[in-house]
């Protein structure tokens, strides 16, 4: 099952969760903070385990990849709270220490 959850903070900001379950267990996840630029959603920060390791990726305001760091999996609802606090400044925040 693919379970998608989109949390629209404002018309141009959302937090998106995509969780893929196999055999009833969570196999892959992607949690992203996206902003609308023009008519496209641009990812600014993303947490995922697609390569088998929990990590966080940061992108610049044009969606270009900046860096990748190890990051233990956090609950999606916790990430929504963190993002709602920092909003677009999240790209400059040291989220690991929160």
């Amino acid at each position, binding site marked *: *099952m*693919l379970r998608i959850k*989109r949390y*629209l*903070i404002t018309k141009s900001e959302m937090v998106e969760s995509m969780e893929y379950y196999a055999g009833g267990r969570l196999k*892959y996840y992607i949690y*992203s903070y996206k902003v609308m630029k023009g008519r496209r959603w641009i990812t600014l920060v*993303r947490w995922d385990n697609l390569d088998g390791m929990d990590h966080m*990726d940061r992108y610049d305001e044009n969606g270009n*990849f900046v860096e990748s760091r190890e990051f233990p999996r956090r609950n999606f609802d916790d990430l929504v709270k963190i993002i709602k606090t920092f909003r677009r400044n999240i790209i400059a925040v040291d989220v690991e220490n929160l």
Partner: protein
Amino acid sequence: MLLRIVRKYRSEDVAVLRRAIRRRHGRFEKVKKMMHIKGCSNPELGEAFLFYLAMQEGAPIEEEVVIEDRKVFNALTAKRFELLEFINAHPPMSIKEIATRTGRDYKNVYDDVSSLSRYLVVNTVKNGKEIVPIGVVEGMGVEL
């Protein structure tokens, strides 16, 4: 105040979604290969990968949308609810087809779909040059 929407994807919706992903990113094998090469530099690839995985397995795709922006209520008009009901009751079709079938002006239907999709009330995909609303809204509720 929150507006919560639950949406499901029928097999016809999944077929349209698959075509849109294939047109944009190529086949499943190509997406897997590109993910290996590009890593996380293209976030859209990872999302396409998860959609493909679910579609390959025939796994259901469920979506929940939570809208915190109160301005969404300005976008919900009686005419747009009628449009939502039409989308729910019919297989996926382009805006042009919807306008023809409902006897409405193309521009009005386009504006309605655009407004609803800006708030994620409707999910759309590009099918060539056409925009196609997909998915069935199963429930919509306001939480105070």
